[in-house]
């Protein structure tokens, strides 16, 4: 039922994928419209916060502190979660995480699972692994349900179906839910999804969830959402399996005060999420509540079995990199995607990864330990809009440049590096800039070299309309003015030190 996942290992390079996306006029229109709407809402609710910049700083400090002591807080989380009756598992990589989850689902005795809030499961392509193991996953987040029914792929970390408009969603529901009469109003679509999902909620006994935050102090898992489907998944099934990256931990319960102000405003432009669920341990484990065993039975609420899979999947490598580390501070609000002029043109699929936009451009190659997705750090004009909007002040442009350096080092290593055209040009330019004499010679040479390419326009001005090789991208849509006859420094010399 679900489409092939977004796999950075096999995805085409960003420029190639982007070129293909540029032709999808409907998708680009949907993306721009949706991001405009969210951005506008975000701007409104952020502007009503007099202390927004202080909150951002607090958010950054909390996240930075957490990353500096991640081992400590993870162990604290494990101890407190276990005490509350949960079982904590550690997964080194995607493969191990998939194996653990599949084993836990099988142990629960179910061959179906309901799922919620699970970009992490997208990261590890859990759905196809579950299906291969004979387990059927049902997405219950409305947007992810649309993706699943449409055999599509998510294009945004908060609004996975952002690239679809309402009419397209109606068509998917009509087809997949067998509702030929379905209307196109938002209420009609919501009703259809509700009917479809309610049956799953009541029938399926095992749930897989992601997590927005893990709270070390209490051992609790926090999930925030707008539809309430997550709460259904957290409370109705008998077995709950939460899978989270190790970067999701927060030290104290009180830290939520900051995060739950930053996250919903940045993500969907809401003052607060309609549903904020914090799940700690299993039902009945809180023996200190003074109820007799029998009395508690009637109050049963939530799973009897609760597992948390803490997944590394290259996060410790990121942690070990001083400059890349701030990537882990991300709270997955998606604000950087909405504001990114590159994302707004291409949509999310061009990034070849579940993490798209600026955060994807820095997170994905690092999650791949710089073995794949090397074109992503270049998928940015470094305009800085992402940094400006990030609620935890991740300096995304700085990390992009840092990763570009890693890519260059990889590309120029060894013998192959000697034949890298770009590196050769860059090194030659650097050599030229290291001497004023060489620089002036290059300026003169440039004027001679460009001559065959220069054409005169009606005003008699010289313009270049075609450039060879690497520079050809420029002349695809732009002309280039001819070099002036005299450089500034030549003029300055001619003029004499004291003016003329």
């Amino acid at each position, binding site marked *: 039922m679900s489409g092939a996942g977004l796999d950075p290992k096999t995805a085409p390079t960003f420029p190639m994928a*982007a070129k293909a996306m540029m032709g999808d006029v409907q998708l680009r229109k949907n993306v721009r419209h949706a991001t405009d709407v969210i951005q506008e809402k975000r701007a409104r609710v952020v502007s009503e916060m007099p202390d927004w910049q202080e909150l951002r700083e607090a958010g950054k400090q909390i996240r930075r502190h957490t990353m500096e002591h991640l081992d400590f807080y993870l162990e604290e989380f494990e101890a407190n979660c276990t005490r509350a009756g949960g079982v904590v598992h550690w997964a080194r990589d995607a493969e191990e995480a998939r194996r653990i989850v599949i084993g836990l689902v099988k142990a629960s005795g179910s061959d179906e699972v309901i799922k919620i809030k699970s970009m992490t499961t997208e990261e590890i392509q859990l759905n196809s692994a579950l299906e291969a193991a004979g387990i059927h996953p049902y997405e219950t987040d409305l947007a992810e349900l649309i993706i699943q029914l449409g055999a599509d792929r998510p294009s945004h970390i908060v609004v996975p179906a952002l690239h679809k408009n309402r009419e397209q969603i109606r068509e998917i529901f009509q087809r997949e839910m067998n509702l030929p009469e379905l209307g196109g109003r938002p209420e009609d679509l919501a009703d259809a999804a509700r009917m479809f999902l309610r049956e799953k909620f009541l029938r399926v006994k095992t749930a897989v969830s992601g997590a927005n935050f893990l709270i070390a102090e209490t051992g609790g898992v926090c999930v925030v959402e707008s539809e309430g489907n997550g709460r259904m998944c957290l409370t109705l099934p008998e077995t709950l399996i939460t899978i989270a990256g190790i970067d999701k931990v927060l030290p104290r319960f009180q830290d939520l005060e900051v995060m739950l102000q930053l996250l919903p405003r940045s993500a969907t432009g809401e003052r607060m999420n309609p549903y904020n669920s914090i799940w700690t341990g299993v039902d009945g484990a809180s023996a200190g509540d003074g109820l007799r065993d029998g009395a508690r039975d009637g109050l049963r609420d939530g799973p009897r079995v609760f597992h948390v899979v803490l997944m590394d999947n290259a996060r410790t490598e990121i942690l070990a990199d001083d400059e890349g580390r701030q990537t882990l501070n991300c709270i997955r609000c998606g604000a950087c995607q909405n504001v990114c*002029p590159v994302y707004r043109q291409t949509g999310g699929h061009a990034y070849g990864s579940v993490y798209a936009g600026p955060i994807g451009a820095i997170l994905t190659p690092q999650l791949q330990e710089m073995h794949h997705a090397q074109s992503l750090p270049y998928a940015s004009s470094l305009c800085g809009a992402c940094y400006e909007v990030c609620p935890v002040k991740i300096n995304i442009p700085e990390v992009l440049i840092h990763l570009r350096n890693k890519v260059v080092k990889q590309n120029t290593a060894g013998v192959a590096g000697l034949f890298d055209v770009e590196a050769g040009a860059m090194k030659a330019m650097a050599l030229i800039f290291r001497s*004023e004499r060489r620089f002036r010679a290059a*300026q003169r040479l*440039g004027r001679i070299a460009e001559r065959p390419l220069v054409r005169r326009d009606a005003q008699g001005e010289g313009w270049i309309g075609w450039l060879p090789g690497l520079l050809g991208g420029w002349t695809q849509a732009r002309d280039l003015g001819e070099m002036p006859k005299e450089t500034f420094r030549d*003029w*300055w010399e001619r003029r004499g030190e004291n003016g003329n």
Partner: protein
Amino acid sequence: MRVSLFITCYNDTLFPETGKAVVRVLERLGHTVEFPQGQTCCGQMHYNTGYQAEAMPLLSRFVEQFKGAEAVVVPSSSCVAMMRDHYPKMALAIGRVELIAEVDALLPKVFEFSEFLTKRLGLEDVGAYYPHRVTYHASCHGLRNLVLGDGPMRLLKAVRGIDLVELQGLEQCCGFGGTFAVKNADVSSAMLAEKTTAVLNTKAEACTACDNSCLMHIQGALHRQRTGVKTVHLAEILAGDEGALR
């Protein structure tokens, strides 16, 4: 004041009129201008493309050329952003103690051109005359890294004869981004198309900015589309020479 000019490799080679205009404005305001001959490039292109090692010697070179300066004026917001955002940590990486100290002492004296006028000299009216319809594009580095705010706009508003029209999506990137325009030519072109549409909608004769890199990009498309609309660096408007409208 004795003002040292860093004209940047880009302006020196491709946009000498901008440098000349900076000289004209500063001298008209009564300052002494000097141009250290050994200057070349700030290293931005190398640094931002991932060739950090190649940018390092350019930092030392810049410091060597300008370390005695009273003020350094640069008619390029992205080059100033490069220096402010990256020079301190580059100096630390190089690890020469005196270089670190020199960078620390020098950076507060480095100003983008419009910033020098509004923030350092506290000016708005520099006595310019420019009788044309103009729109202003806020380059990303000026806007976000240097936080120029409405400084350039205030300078423009004080120009006599000018017909200043606001650009829709003023804060949107034009899609240049240095090597981005070449490496991701398709996306860059799409971003540029939005920008040139906005420029054309203003019916302005010229689009101005504090950075010739953006302007070269915008101009490239305006010329390709045979629009007749020009671009002109802010300094050339403030120099008040009608001939500056290329």
